[in-house]
């Protein structure tokens, strides 16, 4: 009984203290005219960013308040919640697809940076890789009815390629300096690797966007960019023989048993572990992997290559572009200072510093000379990149989901390529019919 009374008293006291504490108004984050509030989610780069913002304050006297909200899902939720209440910070990012960015822009949350970019004969714009800017730009005639403009500043670039383990190549009798040049050679190499006791390809295909990435690369290779976009527009069906060819590639992977076990439900972090511990010879992963592999296995000898083409008609494309971008709050009163900060951050010196410390590719082309050698293999392919955020049209989300999950089904032998194609066409037709009715 005593414990209970004691506890009750404690609770009452505690609540009293709390009420007193909360009576004091919340901190005045935005009161200081010389402080820019920045929200980010990149735990890996927090240290590097803090260093940079301290430098900026010393140089210009403008204080940058960095707030970290991780993981990215929590960050995205927080940004949406803040959008609902008009409490967005001065600088933040919209994670997700073009559709989401378009919504934010159309709701008036994002400032158009095109004027700043184009000033002084495109002084700022010219510093970046064109592809990096394209991720957060909208062109005339885009499907979201967004006013054309540049809405984000990329602070790094990335691309996703096939990584291969040179040591395992040697063990299997393959030449590590001559990776497979097309799909047939790819399968041959995998057979040799499996004979030597290693798994072929590993990737986090439990994360469906990675499946989309691989499939999309080969779609661009086999159908060509225009036909792929026409499919999204509804002018080409999925039962087109070339799409069937794309799906059949996955069936071949299954038949050859070319994938590491459990790839279909694997997260990418697990796939990275498997590649780093040298159990698989190929990995589909992005340039961020350099940092990851270094931590897990600094002695790993590996290289990056384009996915081996399955067709000679169109070039192979990889996904890439801006890794992370920052947007400026259109309703903020400190737009000029925010833009000034972002300009500073994208200058060669800062980009080189960021890149060296976090092993990510810089978004400023001039910083390329200063990057660590190991990233060079990734940087070399930036011109061959593309990304859904850069396309003028997008597929319907439910069809995309069926596409990705359907490929998973192909990989486990539950569906054939033709079945998946028919299912996708059916789904899309129904969706369009409903749209027409409304």
């Amino acid at each position, binding site marked *: *009984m005593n414990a*209970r009374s004691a*506890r*009750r008293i*404690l*609770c009452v006291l*505690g*609540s009293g203290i*709390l*009420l007193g*504490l*909360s009576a004091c*108004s*919340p*901190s005045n*984050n935005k009161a200081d005219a010389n402080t820019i509030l920045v929200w980010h*989610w*990149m*735990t*890996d780069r*927090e240290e590097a960013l803090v260093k940079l913002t301290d430098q900026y304050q010393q140089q210009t006297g403008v204080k940058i308040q960095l*707030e970290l*909200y*991780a*993981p*990215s899902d*929590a*960050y995205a*939720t*927080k940004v*949406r*919640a*803040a959008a*609902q*209440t008009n*409490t967005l910070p001065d600088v933040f990012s919209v994670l997700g697809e073009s559709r989401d960015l378009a919504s934010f822009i159309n709701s008036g949350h994002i400032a158009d940076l095109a004027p700043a970019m184009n000033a002084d004969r495109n002084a700022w714009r010219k510093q970046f890789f064109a592809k990096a800017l394209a991720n957060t730009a909208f062109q005339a005639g885009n499907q979201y009815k967004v006013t054309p403009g540049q809405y984000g500043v990329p602070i790094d670039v990335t691309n996703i390629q096939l990584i291969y383990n040179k040591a395992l190549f040697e063990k299997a009798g393959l030449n590590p300096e001559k990776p497979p040049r097309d799909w047939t050679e790819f399968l041959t190499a995998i057979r040799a690797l499996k004979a030597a006791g290693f798994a072929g390809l590993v990737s986090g295909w439990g994360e469906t966007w990675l499946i989309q990435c691989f499939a999309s690369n080969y779609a661009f290779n086999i159908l060509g960019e225009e036909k792929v976009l026409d499919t999204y527009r509804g002018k080409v069906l999925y039962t087109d023989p070339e799409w069937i060819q794309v799906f059949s590639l996955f069936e071949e992977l299954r038949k050859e048993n070319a994938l590491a076990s459990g790839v279909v439900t694997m997260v990418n*972090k697990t796939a990275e*572990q498997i590649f*780093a*511990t040298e159990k698989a010879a190929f990995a589909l992963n992005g340039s*961020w*992997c350099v*940092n*990851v592999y270094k*931590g*897990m*296995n*600094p002695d790993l000898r590996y290289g990056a290559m384009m996915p081996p083409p399955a067709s000679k008609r169109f070039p192979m494309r990889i996904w890439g572009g801006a890794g992370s971008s920052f947007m400026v709050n259109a309703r903020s009163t400190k737009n000029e200072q925010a833009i000034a900060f972002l300009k500073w951050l994208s200058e060669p010196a800062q980009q080189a510093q960021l890149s060296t410390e976090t092993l990510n590719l810089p978004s400023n082309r001039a910083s390329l000379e200063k990057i660590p050698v190991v990233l060079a293999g990734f940087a070399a392919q930036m011109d061959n990149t593309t990304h859904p955020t850069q396309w003028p049209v997008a597929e319907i989300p439910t069809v995309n989901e069926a596409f990705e999950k359907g490929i998973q089904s192909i990989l486990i032998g539950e569906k054939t390529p033709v079945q998946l194609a028919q299912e996708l066409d059916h789904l899309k037709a129904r969706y369009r019919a409903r749209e027409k009715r409304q």
Partner: protein
Amino acid sequence: MNTMGNTFYRIRHWSRLAVAHAICLTVASACVFPLMWMVSSSLKTQRTIFSDPGLWVSNPQWSNYYLAWTRGNFGQYFFNSLLYTVLVVGGVIIIASMAAYAFSRLKFPGRNLLFILVISTMMIPIPGSFIALYVLLNKMGLIDTRLGYILPQINGGLALGIFLLKTFFDKLPQDLEDAARIDGCNKFQVYMHVAMPLAKPAIAVLAVFNALAVWNEYLLATLVFSRPELMPLQKGLMVFQGAHITEYPLLMAGITISIIPILTLYFIMQRYIVAGITAGAIKT
């Protein structure tokens, strides 16, 4: 009467005991295994954590614990989590028990309807309720305050608490309460001195359940708080989980540190769960 003297019964007793122990030990090892993996991983390095998956660590990095504490700023976050847990659990117990007592023992119009309404929140998951909650807290000016974090969580524990406690109160025999009423106690005194002590097991279960929920909570904290000095422990653990790089050994060390208070609480509480209350009280 001496059933144990007979050999047959003796063998049956011991074999039953053996089976019971076998079951318990098997299940127990399945439960303890992840904990052991976690602790052993916390003593490894980033390189060896997956390349050397065995439980034995040849070169234990005890410094991981120190690093986890300092880099994760555990001191501040620990205090915050403790504060939130105590206040939310206390709040839930007091408020839910009072309401459950009323639903169980007191008569008033609208009793059934209200009860169903309150516990139905347990059954309807509200997607995106976080965002609606944020809008609400913003209107009330509770963003970035401790109160704004605690109140929704107290509310979150009420449905289950009321449901659980009402079930237990319903089970209690009326005699004690009637006796107390006859002795002149008012409703509140009967509630405090008769009903609550008898419901100790249920309260202990509730305490543990809510403490665990608050201790592990993260998303609401991310939404409500901006100032780091208000953040709970889970925020500290996030430091080790980057977008691409997870520092596994430090993360495991951090998690190990963070489950100690919860286990301690459970250890204390389970004595109440076991207390066995009415045994002596109701002898006619």
